[in-house]
């Protein structure tokens, strides 16, 4: 499916009309599932991700249990109807298994797992509609679901991707920009602790571009972080009215 590389930036505007440092419109809702201990749905542009959290609960199978902390298990999955064109096979792909690990490791530094020895915390991330940035939306949603479940955390984790398309550093790439751009760098961080929990880079950036991209990503993360906190508080303010 190799096609001619399209022009991604025209007159300083991206294909969807955004400036390079703009995020896509974000919609966040917390506590959307009744059966899960915590849940959240995050929409970033056309990307839509649902996260559910169970636990701390008993570990099954028992041999996985750790005597000094809770184990954290994460499953990232793309639903069969989440991609354009052909139906995605529901069998877990190599990519999904890897992203499950990446998301787990991005969230682990935030969770105070030593408070619940011999238990398990299960995180399920389901991509309902994919249009680039599903792992970052997944991390954003999963950290909200964890907070909604009442699991003790040092901070919320927010994530966003930065990249380079047509030589310009841009924030929050969508599918087309990811596919035809020169670089793609997802970043996750705990803003109030100023700690980065995940940083991946696919493509090539010069050291200067890297610094510029990272600063842009952290700026985007701060904006998403505020939206996360607002969404969490909104759930309780609405209930009292």
């Amino acid at each position, binding site marked *: 499916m190799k096609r001619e590389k399209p022009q991604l930036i025209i007159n300083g505007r991206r294909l969807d009309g955004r400036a390079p440092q703009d995020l896509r419109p974000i919609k966040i809702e917390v506590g959307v599932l009744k059966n899960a201990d915590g849940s959240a749905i995050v929409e970033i542009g056309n990307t839509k991700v649902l996260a559910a959290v169970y636990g701390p609960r008993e570990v099954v199978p028992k041999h996985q249990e750790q005597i000094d902390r809770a184990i954290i298990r994460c499953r990232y999955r793309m639903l069969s109807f989440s991609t354009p064109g052909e139906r995605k096979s529901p069998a877990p792909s190599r990519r999904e298994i890897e992203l499950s690990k990446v998301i787990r490791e991005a969230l682990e530094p935030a969770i*105070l797992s030593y408070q619940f*020895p011999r238990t398990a915390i299960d995180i399920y991330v389901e991509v309902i509609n994919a249009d680039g940035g599903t792992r970052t939306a997944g991390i954003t949603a999963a950290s909200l679901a964890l*907070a*909604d479940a009442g699991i003790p955390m040092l*901070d*919320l984790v927010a994530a966003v991707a930065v990249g380079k398309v047509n030589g310009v550093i841009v924030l929050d790439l969508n599918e087309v920009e990811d596919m035809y751009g020169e670089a793609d760098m997802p970043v996750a961080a705990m*803003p109030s602790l100023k700690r980065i929990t995940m940083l991946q880079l696919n493509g090539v950036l010069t050291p200067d571009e890297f610094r510029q991209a990272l600063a842009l990503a952290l700026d985007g993360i701060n904006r998403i972080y505020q939206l996360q906190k607002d969404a*969490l508080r909104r759930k309780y303010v609405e209930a009292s009215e």
Partner: protein
Amino acid sequence: MLSNASTVIKRTIAVPGDVIVVDKDTVVEGSNLYKIDENRYIVTSISIQDLEQEGDKKKIRVIGLKGRYIPKEGDTVIGIVSDVSVTYWIIDIRSPYPAILNASDYLGRPFNPATENIRKFLEIGDVIIAKVAQFDRTRPPLLSVQDKGYGKVTEGLLIEIEPSKVGRVIGKKRSMLNMLIEETKCNFVVGANGRILLKCPNSELEYIAILAIKKIEEEAHTLGLTERIREFILSEKVKRGLIRYEA
């Protein structure tokens, strides 16, 4: 109200990552806090954050709104038998750790599995009121029923609420619970694990009591809850014709 009682000046919802800064006139209280340095704390779960004034001292109280029940020695819990072993029962107490109740403790005498069948006393699905006798996170919690008011439950109605909201159902100095007992004439046993056992004189009052408890759970984070619940119960009683409306 007592004159030296603390008054809540401001109530906000705190979320994970919120930083609380304290100075020498302020003390901070709460179990879900993480200390970063001498005067900064992080709130680790969704909580109510109350700023209270006590004379010229300020106090920040942080109370968690969500989370699983973690057993604590001395807690009264309401459990459901989930499995039977040869000499003990495994009890579901809505915590990540299933609890154990020994047959010898339940019977109050030595138990010999060779001569007696444990299932004669408690079966899977039976409800018990018990005390957490022992728990240290390295072994399953051990329950005991050797005290007044503990043991098998034979009648009543069981409702479940969020364990972290049990404190609101009881209220400050049992104010909420006393009000509920007074208004609904029901008998309440409140388990620390979020299970509440009701015994009511009739089904109308029982229904009102359930509605009231669910309303407390939903509005646990709001101020002046006891009075609002009292009004709610009165209006429900009027609606059902149990009492006549008095202007």
